[in-house]
């Protein structure tokens, strides 16, 4: 059964490699991305646009931090936690980082088992990924609560430059929203995998198309991107 649109690419004999390959692909008829399906290419282009959004956030953070004459709060102290009498700098953020990286690991394995058509393992790993993502959002909610209780606001805070609050809530809030939406979509895809939608050719509720296991890889791209953004936030906002 064909949907009438090209979702998979099995044609094409030999293709050029290297720079000549780029020129040949881009100057050819119909499509530039010869081996990536439209769904995957569109997800990549969406992620590129999202990269620019987060770049602008981090850039505005850089600009206000460089231009303020008031000392910037020390993130190492602001995000420290007292555990059993000793103070651990940044410990919550470190744990959040490990949680998100672990979710990326389980996601990558879910994609792999998806292509092997192992329905149970794929669904289980997707659910585990969603659980780790939800844990991350929960810890972020805890972090926000702690900071707000201590007096951090978008317009002021007890530790130094006022711009700290606005950039913190903006950047981590936008990232947390991305994680939250990722968890929702992971749960939807996990349900479809579990039901066997990609084996029976059941039509999806959103596009009405027959799904394939590539859907798992596409949602995986989004999820890894969320982890990727956190790598940059962790480096520039928390460690710098």
């Amino acid at each position, binding site marked *: 059964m064909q949907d009438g649109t090209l979702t*998979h*690419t*099995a044609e*094409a004999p*030999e*293709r*050029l*490699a290297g*720079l*000549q*390959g*780029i020129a040949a*692909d881009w100057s050819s008829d119909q499509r*530039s*991305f*010869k*081996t*990536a*399906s439209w769904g995957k*290419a569109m997800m*990549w*282009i969406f*992620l*590129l646009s999202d*990269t*620019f959004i987060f*770049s602008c956030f981090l*850039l505005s953070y*850089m*600009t*206000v931090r*460089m*231009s303020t*004459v008031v000392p910037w709060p020390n993130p*190492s102290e602001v995000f420290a936690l007292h555990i059993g009498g000793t103070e651990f*700098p*940044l410990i919550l953020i*470190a744990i959040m980082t*490990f949680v998100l*990286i672990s979710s*990326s*690991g389980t*996601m*990558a*394995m879910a994609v*792999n088992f998806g292509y*092997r058509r192992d329905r149970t393992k794929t669904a289980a790993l997707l659910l585990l990924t969603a659980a780790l993502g939800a844990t991350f959002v929960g810890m972020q909610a805890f972090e926000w609560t702690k900071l707000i209780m201590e007096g951090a606001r978008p317009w002021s805070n007890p530790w130094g430059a006022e711009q700290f609050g606005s950039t913190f809530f903006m950047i981590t809030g936008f990232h947390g929203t991305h994680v939250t939406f990722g968890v929702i979509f992971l749960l939807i895809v996990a349900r479809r995998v579990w039901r066997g939608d990609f084996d029976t050719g059941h039509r999806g509720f959103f596009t009405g198309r027959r799904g394939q296991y590539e859907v798992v*890889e596409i949602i*995986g*791209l989004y999820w*890894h991107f969320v*982890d*990727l953004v956190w*790598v*940059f936030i*962790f*480096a520039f906002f*928390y*460690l*710098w």
Partner: protein
Amino acid sequence: MAHATIPAKTHDEAQQHPIKLYLVVWGWLFILSACSYLVDYFKFEGYLRWFLILLFMLLKAGLIVAVFMHMAWERLALVYAIIVPPVLVLVFVGIMALEANYTFLTRIIFFVTGS
């Protein structure tokens, strides 16, 4: 014309990698994250701190994009279309750094002279 050619593969074949690969990358991401945390824990300062933060950040980002997101196995047409535009953001970084320095300077001159 002796162009280098690569055999065309169907998509399903192209993304079959052993699970071990993902576990190894996962392990490296853990190690690199631990390293960047230790940069803060041992309170490295100045250029050493910034260099180490950027190094671990770029290594982690590279591993995630190349292996987890399968970029290493995509055609270069897609790789360049996605990777090159974000690199150009560095120009924007340069512009905003100049602007921020100028703002800082004017603030020093006009607002903090009394203190």
